[in-house]
């Protein structure tokens, strides 16, 4: 797995190269697709995205050198800080794209909900790390964790950002599941969700409700609100096995596909590269996730196990919710395809996740070599 050659210096050789190549492949697909989505131009997306990716990749490599103990130490303060920012967004956030999501710190626009995705996983991992194993199946093993997840998720939901709130909850629940909470919790929660669904539906914003309804029957309104899903399916379906050829996607180039460079970038890609390209991308993501799961399995500490599994799950949910949405299996919730869609937030989140995963992986290796 590691490249161990005398020519390559030791610190470089110790990097998880298989993962790096996979990430590089996915990022390349992203940039190449953005180039096409702009009508065969590096601006305004491809070049900017390439720079963003490189920068955050550097950040990820940097994070990979952070010791696990420091991550553990920083987890609670970071969670509290992000939580405060979320509250701040509620108070001074401004309206953009019909949702209150940003806090403008003057020099940078921050979307704290984005940081909450890895933070929730880490804080739960830390919580179950500290919790004596005998308490896992007790009440005190549940409620603090539930509070840690659902309070920020609630804040994100009222922003309103259904997609991110969902991802925060799913990430947290995955950690709780792996931590060994009783199975019936999850069964009961699923049943409760099934009951609460219709109630939640009535509380949704109009645009969200419309999206759910149209997800259930996109063909009912192919030119109105169902337009996104219909056009996305047309783009994907018309690509066929081999695609229409690079720079030849009519759906994206003629603007029929809305958001072809952000949330629906997968449709842009598949229209031109076909089933073959799409499957390759899905497999690449799956390999990344498998790598993350293996980091979790090999981790020596409970925090490492839970954090690695949770961060991997975050990436997994990112990818699969986006792909399901683009292929008409889930409602349009506004989650981008990480590393491929244009935009810095998702790249940042996923790179932070990967950086921490690499740190945990390095940790498990160095420890094992020490022992």
């Amino acid at each position, binding site marked *: 797995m590691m490249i161990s050659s005398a020519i390559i210096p030791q610190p470089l050789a110790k990097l998880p190269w298989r993962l790096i190549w996979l990430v590089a492949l996915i990022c390349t697909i992203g940039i190449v697709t953005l180039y096409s989505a702009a009508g065969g131009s590096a601006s305004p997306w491809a070049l900017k995205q390439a720079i963003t990716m490189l920068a955050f990749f550097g950040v990820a490599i940097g994070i990979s050198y952070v010791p696990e103990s420091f991550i553990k130490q920083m987890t609670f303060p970071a969670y509290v800080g992000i939580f405060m920012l979320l509250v701040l967004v509620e108070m001074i956030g401004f309206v953009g794209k019909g949702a209150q999501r940003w806090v403008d710190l003057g020099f940078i626009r921050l979307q704290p909900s984005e940081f909450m995705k890895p933070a929730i996983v880490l804080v739960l991992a830390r919580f179950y790390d500290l919790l004596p*194993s*005998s*308490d*896992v*199946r*007790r009440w005190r093993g549940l409620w603090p964790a539930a509070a840690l997840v659902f309070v920020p998720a609630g804040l994100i939901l009222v922003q309103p950002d259904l997609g991110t709130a969902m991802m925060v909850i799913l990430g947290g629940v*995955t950690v709780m*599941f*792996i*931590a*060994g909470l009783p199975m019936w919790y999850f069964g009961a929660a699923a049943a409760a969700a099934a009951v609460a669904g219709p109630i939640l539906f009535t509380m949704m914003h109009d645009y969200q409700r419309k999206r759910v309804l149209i997800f259930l029957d996109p063909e009912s309104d192919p030119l109105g609100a169902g337009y996104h899903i219909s*056009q996305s*399916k*047309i*783009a*994907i*379906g*018309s*690509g*066929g*096995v081999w695609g229409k050829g690079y720079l030849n996607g*009519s*759906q994206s180039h*003629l*603007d*029929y596909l809305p958001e072809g460079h952000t949330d629906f970038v997968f449709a842009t890609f*598949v229209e031109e590269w*076909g*089933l073959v390209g*799409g*499957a390759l991308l*899905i*497999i690449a*993501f*799956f390999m990344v*996730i*498998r790598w993350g*799961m293996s980091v*979790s*399995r090999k981790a020596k500490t*409970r925090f490492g*196990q839970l954090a690695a*599994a949770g961060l991997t*799950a975050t990436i*997994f949910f990112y990818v*699969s919710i986006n*792909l*399901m949405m683009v*292929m*008409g*299996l889930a409602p349009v919730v506004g989650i981008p395809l990480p590393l491929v869609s244009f935009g810095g937030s998702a790249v940042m989140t996923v790179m932070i996740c990967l950086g921490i995963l690499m740190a945990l992986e390095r940790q498990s290796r160095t420890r094992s070599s020490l022992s």
Partner: protein
Amino acid sequence: MKASRFTAAHQSMTFSRRMMLVGGAQAAFGGLLVARLGYLSVAQNKHYRLLSESNRVQLIIVPPRRGWIVDRRGKPIAINRSDFRVDLIPEQVEHPTETLRTLTDILQLTPDDVDRIIKEMKASRGYQPVQVAENVPYDQYAAITVRLPELPGVSPQRGFSRFYPAGPAVAHLVGFVGAASAKDYEKEKNPLLVTPGFKIGKEGLEKVLEPKLRGIPGGQRVELTARGKLVRELEPKPDRSGQTVQLTIDADLQEYAARRMGDQSGALVAMDVTGGDLLAYVSMPAFDPNSFSDGIGRTEWRMLSEDDHIPLLNKVAQGLYPSGSTIKPAMALAFLKQGIDPARRVNCPGGIRIGNRYFRCDAVHGSMDMHSAIERSCNTYFWATGLITDPEKTTEMVQYLGYGEKFDLPIPSQRFGTMPSPKWLKEKYHREWQGYDTANTSIGQGYVLINPMQLAVMPARLASGKLLLPRLLMPDRRLPTPNLDVDPAHLEIVRKAMSAVVNERGTAVGSKLPLEGILMAGKTGTAQVFKLGQRGHQSNWALRDHALFISFAPADAPRFAIGCIIEHGGFGASAAAPIVRDCMTYLFDRQKAMDALAPLEKQWGGTLAERTARRQAQFEAASKANLQA
């Protein structure tokens, strides 16, 4: 407690197990996503490719050019004239308000036009253009073209509009074209119909021959963005012009007849007796089909529909009149067939008593045989002879010669009139045939109603001895026409009498042809409109009798037959016969006929074209006055 037994070892086992579950779930999801991708791009590929293609490519309909209508010699009756039009492509308009204001200024659009344009712009989708104005004068077209850079979305174009060189002379023959109505579109669901500038036949031949004349639209296939912006033009599909339709009409005669009728209200039909070709099909006065095809103004429409000469009515197809004495040649033939001796004499003391009613003849004719009764149009002879023959059989013969007969002509909504018989009377009015019914029918009054077409068919059949059927469309193949089931000797008697009407001592001696060696045979008719006993000139135009005339020429070797009715023209001999005479002259010597027309037109205040132009100016003035009021 169960929870207390949950140890670190348990935890580790649970972790492995749950990791497997999560990993398995993730793998399952991955599989699901790939499967979905495969389903969409392989199984559903065809469906989505079609949708993608129909997204990408739109067809801009290029209307076909309408087929021409030409006369028997190929002279154009209805053609296409290139004109200028201005359309708007809503998706490309950047500043709708300013653009519309500029267009209104340049094209002098009315508020109604502007309302319509705004409505259509809102309803239009994609690249579908909206018509701003058609028949734009060249200087306005040029003004728009010059200002195009500041008018994105405005598209000045060259188009085609229908043109009828003879104007009103052919109005009721060819009808006119117009934009398809919502109803037309409902019926056909053809997007061509709502293409700006496309016209369909609305009346007359234009309507009936629509399938032939329309042609096949072409298409400019274009690649468009979702916002309707043109990306590129793909290979176009050429349009196919409509077929040219050749009529049997002689356009020159048609126009001459229309001019010769002047401002009188009436109809004239001319027929070639060798095969039944209709040479003229005139109903006057008429509207100008050119102004109908451009979309007629409300004022012009109102003025036309209020005119007591009913220019909007196709009198050939829909006007029904008592035949008057024009029925007499046919009556005579019926009498002959029933064995009446042509030499049998009837004394005309100026009338006859039938039952308790006295029927008054036009004059005291004295002793009449068949020849002189036709020549002088003596009613008494026909009353008396009608009473001694079988009315059922008589009517049968008259019908056989064309009165009341239905003809298969490419003219929408025709009326064919009535030839009454005892059987018909019983069915229709549930009463027995009486002597006075015979009397009325014998002189073409009472229930007798005929249309102007039959006025030409009747003399054509008498002249040729053939069962001619009128036709308007030039046939590919001419089938021989069957002979009439009539004794040729009988026909000869009738023809001689008809010749005498014009050339001897008859009622139409004033209408002899001014030609060397060519005689016209004919029969006058005066159809009573108001009351018996008040015949002749009335000061009130609407109460005057209709004047009719049927004829054929040359009398000895017939070539042409003409039937004519002039509404409220008074005596047939004075109003209808001279018109027929001049038209007949025209068929043999055009110059002579034109010379006869010139002084008349001077007296009427100009040629038909000049008078039409003047009327048009009147319409426009009235419409302007209305607008200001």
